[in-house]
């Protein structure tokens, strides 16, 4: 069986179209994960014991179970309890929850990296809790996290094919559908692999560049 370039060329537009769905899932999932990760970390720092333990438990649970199982659960089990979401929303929710648990650890490390004196300066300014977080601590905690966020973004992008298992017609799902019609597997899956490669590679380089810039800035500082 040889690679049929004509067939590959013919299905390319459909696959590129499907790439948009992959993008939507990735961006939606990342936005949700960024917000959720911060919320989880703030809850863990709330100092209210039941909240702290519940949050720690939830994070361990999500990190300790496979994304695939979580997606199945959201897609097949929640509707039994009357919660039916469309496929893309379910996918975004699954990715967001899963990666949110991981990002909460990134936030933790970044916030721990802010020197104690900054918190003390906030107290001396008599800043409210919200002011302390929003204007004084997070703006200096987040920049060093950006490269790590970038790496998780790429990892999440490469996890999106799992969404094919809950019938989302993203890249892999679309390729499967094409293959099911033509009985040709080499071309669709090769193209899927290539599209992922073409998009991930430059992104990874961008993240490395960002990392270098932030490190350089830190060397100038302090």
């Amino acid at each position: 069986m040889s690679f049929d370039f004509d067939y590959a060329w013919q299905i390319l537009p459909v696959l590129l179209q499907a790439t948009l769905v992959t993008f939507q899932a990735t961006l939606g999932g990342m936005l949700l994960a960024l917000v959720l990760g911060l919320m989880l970390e703030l809850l863990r720092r709330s100092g209210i014991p039941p909240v702290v333990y519940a949050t720690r438990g939830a994070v361990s649970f999500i990190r300790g179970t496979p994304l695939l199982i979580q997606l199945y659960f959201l897609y097949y089990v929640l509707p039994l309890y009357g919660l039916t979401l469309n496929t893309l929303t379910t996918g975004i929710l699954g990715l967001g929850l899963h990666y949110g648990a991981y990002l909460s650890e990134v936030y933790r490390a970044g916030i721990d990296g802010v020197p104690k004196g900054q918190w003390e300066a906030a107290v001396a300014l008599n800043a409210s809790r919200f002011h302390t977080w929003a204007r004084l601590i997070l703006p200096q905690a987040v920049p060093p996290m950006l490269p790590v966020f970038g790496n998780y973004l790429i990892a999440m992008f490469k996890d999106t094919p799992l969404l094919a298992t809950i019938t989302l017609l993203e890249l892999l799902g679309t390729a499967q559908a094409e293959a099911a019609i033509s009985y040709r597997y080499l071309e669709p899956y090769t193209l899927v692999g290539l599209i992922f490669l073409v998009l991930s590679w430059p992104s990874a380089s961008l993240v490395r560049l960002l990392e270098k810039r932030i490190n350089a800035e830190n060397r100038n500082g302090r």
Partner: protein
Amino acid sequence: MGAESRQPILSLRGVSKSYGSVQILREIDLDVGAGQRIALIGPSGSGKTTLLRLVMTLETPEAGTIEVEGELLGLRRAGDRLVKDRGAHLRSVRGKIGMVFQHFNLFPHMTALQNIMDGPVHVRGLSKEKARAHALDLLSKVGLRQKADSYPRQLSGGQQQRVAIARALAMEPKILLFDEITSALDPELVGEVLTIVRNLANETGTTMLIVTHEMGFAREVADRVLFMEGGRIVEDGDPEQVFANPRSERTKAFLGAVLHR
């Protein structure tokens, strides 16, 4: 002096603090009159810095009470018991106090001007224009008007500390705490920071508590000197008396050691 008739601006009663098994402060009683400039001197570990940190609410005393203008700090009455206070009342009392730190603790993501404006705008609710004008005035006062748009990392230690002083002043505190503000500076930068505080002491009536190892500065700026050792205030008097004629043997020994180095 008539100090009895006027309420002290700051008063500590039986304040104790320890870290683990080490007792840092032992039942401190202290009344500070409005406008007093107090230098706290003494060997390292004597509790000077901890005393300031308690007043700034950066630490919580194990025993005793602190009052600012007659209002409890960090505590409130619930019936006949005292309970921890974290709410609006704590902030209303704490707003009367400001602090300058040994390591400056400027916000690295803000320019000098933003560092000074942030509190007035977001804590005191001043308009941006007003806060900006005031902040620029303060920068001029500390001789750094031209550095308004510099980030802390672009400033020398002495300049950073001057911005930090301006930041504290912008909140218009009634009590200003200085915690070894020249200890982290290179020797040639100490002078510029001390000059600022000296001018400030002459120009304003702000109550100051100054922890310092600069004895000449303490003698010159303070109108009252406390010598601390082992978590107690061992000597309390005016600078002339404490420096020239210390009553306690310990003060004598300490001053002998630091002044004749």
